[in-house]
């Protein structure tokens, strides 16, 4: 089994968006994504495994034309509780 294909979290919740109109097909998103969310088809990036996305924002941070958007954050209960309570705190 190839690494990374084993685990999947909750479907239809991630905030990842790709504007294919802006995409130049450079492939950086595919390179930095740790969960094989993207593929390159006909010179454009495409989201092929949206539910694999963990919203780390590596792709959006490195997209040269800002074609990617994601509400980044840590998938961590403590971080979210701290955020809801509006306090600073440790996560990992």
């Amino acid at each position, binding site marked *: 089994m*190839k*690494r*990374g*294909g*084993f*685990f*999947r*979290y*909750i*479907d239809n*919740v*991630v*905030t990842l968006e790709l504007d294919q109109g802006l995409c130049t097909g450079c492939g*950086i998103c595919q*390179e*930095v*994504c*740790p*969960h*094989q969310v993207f593929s390159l088809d006909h010179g454009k990036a495409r989201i092929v495994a949206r539910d*694999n*996305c*963990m*919203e*780390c*924002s*590596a*792709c959006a*941070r*490195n997209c*040269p034309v800002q074609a990617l958007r994601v*509400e*980044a*954050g*840590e*998938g*961590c*209960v*403590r*971080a*979210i509780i701290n955020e809801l309570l509006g306090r600073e705190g440790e*996560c*990992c």
Partner: protein
Amino acid sequence: MKTVPPVAEKGLLPLALTMAEAKPETVFKPPSTDQDFVVGKVASAVGQVARVAASLTGQDRMGSWLVRCNIGRMSFVVDPGLYALGSPNSGSPVLVTANYKMSFDQLRGALPGRDCWLLVLDTKGINVWCAAGKGTFGTVELYDRIIASRLTEVVSHRKIIVPQLGAPGVNGLGIKKHTGFQVVWGPVLASDLPAFLDRGMKAEPAMRCKGFPLAERMALVPVELTQVVGKTCLLMLFFLIFSGLGGGHSFWEASLDMGLFAVLALLAALVSGTVLVPLMLPWLSGRAFSIKGMWTGLFSYLFLVAISGLVSPARIIGPLEAVAWLLMVPALSSWLGMNYTGASTYTSRSGVRHEMLRAIPVQAAAGSAGFLCWLAARFWLT
């Protein structure tokens, strides 16, 4: 180091420290040679650079084990800055890492017999991936560290290898634009670095994927345990005392009467949520970690009931007490299991929020209902 220029084009790197703003002792001091893993010095175009050992000692490994158990966590750091591994020259590759000693050790231990430069960023002792998420393993810190270590003089090429898991914090094109160094994304695992270097800095697709193998899942268990063991012990004490206050026997008899089972039930919940969930993660039904935790809690509770006759043959738990723990053990285990999302390598913030908003009301309701049943069993129906 007085030639360090202020950050140009402030709009693009707004947070980068200029010489005036930076604290010299934290940002521009070269790494101390008085660290255990420094074994000598290497000459470079900018002077002597500390050389680090390419193999880990027993002491290094012991440090990692202690940190895994949450001991000495905050002092497990190395000085940020430039180091040499082997005998690098101006053509040797530059590898970037975090100043969490475990990250640094995994990097230097993964490259036996190689000559490289190691550029350690100040991530406040946090590993690369978590620090990238927080932004401390970030574009600005990398920029400052490249300038401060005068990397353009140390090496003649213009490439730096940044771990792929640093990408959430580092804009590679920004680094290229402002320093001239092209960021080459290294593999996810340091152990893939030799193969990556041998293939001309190219990663196989498998080297780009973050998995979550059993060993990695279990390595995170002790830290999770240390965070909840104290609270669980308090809960145990609470149930022992409350059990002692009812039941119509002497305090100690009454305390052991229902309290002993309470201690075992809480232990079952603790183990289910913090050990069994990580252990059986891929095989537990449900995507949400709270559901996985509910299952492990339910099964270990049923197992506990099945063997409780062997543990204390003199006493069989009453029906209401059994219902109480049937509600409380899965609820607690579900909560603990849900907390493991923070340790996992594939959960999104949106997913965790989604799961929390649905699971916490159910966990709270089941826990409260179970506790009321337990109080009823102890004080009103004895």
